[in-house]
């Protein structure tokens, strides 16, 4: 455990993000296994590195933690917090799933929206949360994203959005599907008003979210090796009975085929987003 000395928190971010147990002398500290390099990494060390393994693997991250590493301290002003999903189809088991998701994620639904500063530049942000039913889009996600683009259009602000989603939420049936059209229309209005929208696609961004607002940004960035696609890889394999190519649907695959602008590692995201905002006159083309 000689490595531990190296782990001593050295900045505010590490302290804020670190799990409750002190790391200096805790030999039994919880660890997580990296699916890429197969090493066990102490949680504190992972948190200190924004949940990125030293091998470069990006672990999934909750919406609020992500927000903390992107925006200026205490600059988040949350919007549209009063919305909760009903069970419009009376879908069996959905109510229970919703309350369980609320407990595990501590959120009302799979996206948080608001205004924030990124290096003192004002913008609207949305961050999806994989801890809430794998970021699936139902009526609440659709309504919040739509409202955010409308708000951003009204105040002439750019939108920065982090996506993570398994797709449309099937427990809300057609109402979920229609959120794809609804959000897309709002993105279009914002875009036609000359305003900037940057999407950062994180692991996984699939289905109805890929086929709507994730792919509609002026600038589309992605985290390394994030899975980005429309149909699920397993479904494709089963339907076509063909072996999938290596790195299928990864960010690298999407970059190669021309569907994203750039892959940006987590630790560089704030700087890149800040510079892009600044290059676009704060995201407002007037």
């Amino acid at each position, binding site marked *: 455990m000689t490595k531990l000395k190296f782990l001593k928190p050295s900045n505010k971010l590490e302290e804020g993000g670190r799990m409750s147990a002190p790391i200096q002398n805790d030999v039994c500290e919880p660890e997580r296994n990296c699916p890429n390099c197969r090493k066990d990494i102490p949680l504190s060390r992972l948190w200190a590195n924004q949940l990125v393994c030293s091998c470069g693997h990006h672990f999934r991250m909750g919406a609020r933690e992500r927000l903390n590493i992107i925006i200026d301290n205490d600059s988040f002003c949350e919007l549209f917090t*009063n919305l909760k999903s009903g069970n419009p189809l009376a879908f069996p088991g959905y109510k229970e799933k919703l309350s369980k998701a609320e407990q595990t994620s501590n959120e009302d639904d799979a996206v948080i929206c608001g205004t924030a500063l990124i290096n003192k530049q004002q913008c609207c942000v949305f961050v999806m949360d994989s801890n809430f039913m794998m970021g699936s889009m139902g*009526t609440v996600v659709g309504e919040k994203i739509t409202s955010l683009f409308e708000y951003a259009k009204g105040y002439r602000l750019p939108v920065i959005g982090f996506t993570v989603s398994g797709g449309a939420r099937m427990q*809300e049936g*057609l109402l*979920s599907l229609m*959120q794809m059209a609804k959000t897309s229309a709002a993105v279009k209005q914002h*875009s036609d008003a000359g305003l900037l929208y940057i999407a950062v696609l994180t692991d996984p961004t699939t289905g109805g979210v890929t*086929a*709507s607002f994730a792919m509609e940004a002026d600038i589309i960035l992605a985290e390394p090796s994030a899975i980005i696609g429309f149909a699920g890889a397993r479904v494709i394999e089963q339907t076509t009975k063909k072996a999938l190519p290596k790195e299928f649907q990864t960010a690298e695959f999407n970059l190669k*085929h021309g569907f994203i602008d750039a892959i940006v590692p987590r630790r560089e995201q704030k700087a890149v987003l800040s510079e892009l905002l600044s290059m676009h006159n704060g995201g407002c083309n007037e």
Partner: protein
Amino acid sequence: MNNIPYERVKLARLNTRPTGLDYVNNIFTNFIEFHGDRRFADDSAIVAGVARLDGKPVTVIAIEKGHLPKERVMRNSGAPQPEGYRKALRLMKQAEKFGRPVICFIDTSGAFCGIEAEQRGQGQAIAENLMEMSTLCVPIISILIGEGGSGGALALGVADRVWMLQNAVYSVISPEGCASILWKDSTQAEKAADSLKLTAEDAKAFGIIERILSEQDIGEIAFYERIKSLLNEELKELTVEPDLIQKRYDRFRKIGVKEINKK
């Protein structure tokens, strides 16, 4: 039996049902097919071009499944590739330029699910259609004639009016897919079909479609004549609508709002 949603799913999938081209050939005259997306290829799962509706030029876009096994292979059973959606968008833009309405016929189990489709951006192609259709300056009417499978159907469904055949279904996921994800058992498709609320009546109740078209004389001349006169009527209204785009926006904007609980 017709009231059981899964029976509707089976009916919607019957290969004896009229397909997209049957509607195109029986409702319109002088149809001239236009091919290709000008980017990569022509997708035969989507048939599109110009035609006359009672003499007036319109742009028609139809997903075609084919009837016979040979046709089904040729049409990829109506599962469009990204090129199909891009061709559709190209022709919608053309319709906008020349000021003619767009009529879409939707019948697909879903956008094609394959390696090449992903390589060529199936998600991006659908997303672009949703975005661009929302501000197209000419009237759009979409009719679901069989299966309305998820994003692959919606990509032609951002319209001013959306109608459904009585036995057509419109769903976020196939009942089989839903059952296998939720209950790890695709044989529970019947239960899933019931839960998904995918019938025309359900879609109307949620405000997702405006009209249900009766199938009592499906495939007969009178059936097509009826659709034709409904199209004429509706287009008469839509072509003089001053707030077409705003109304289309509002149409989708309100979907799902009243189903949300406000804390």
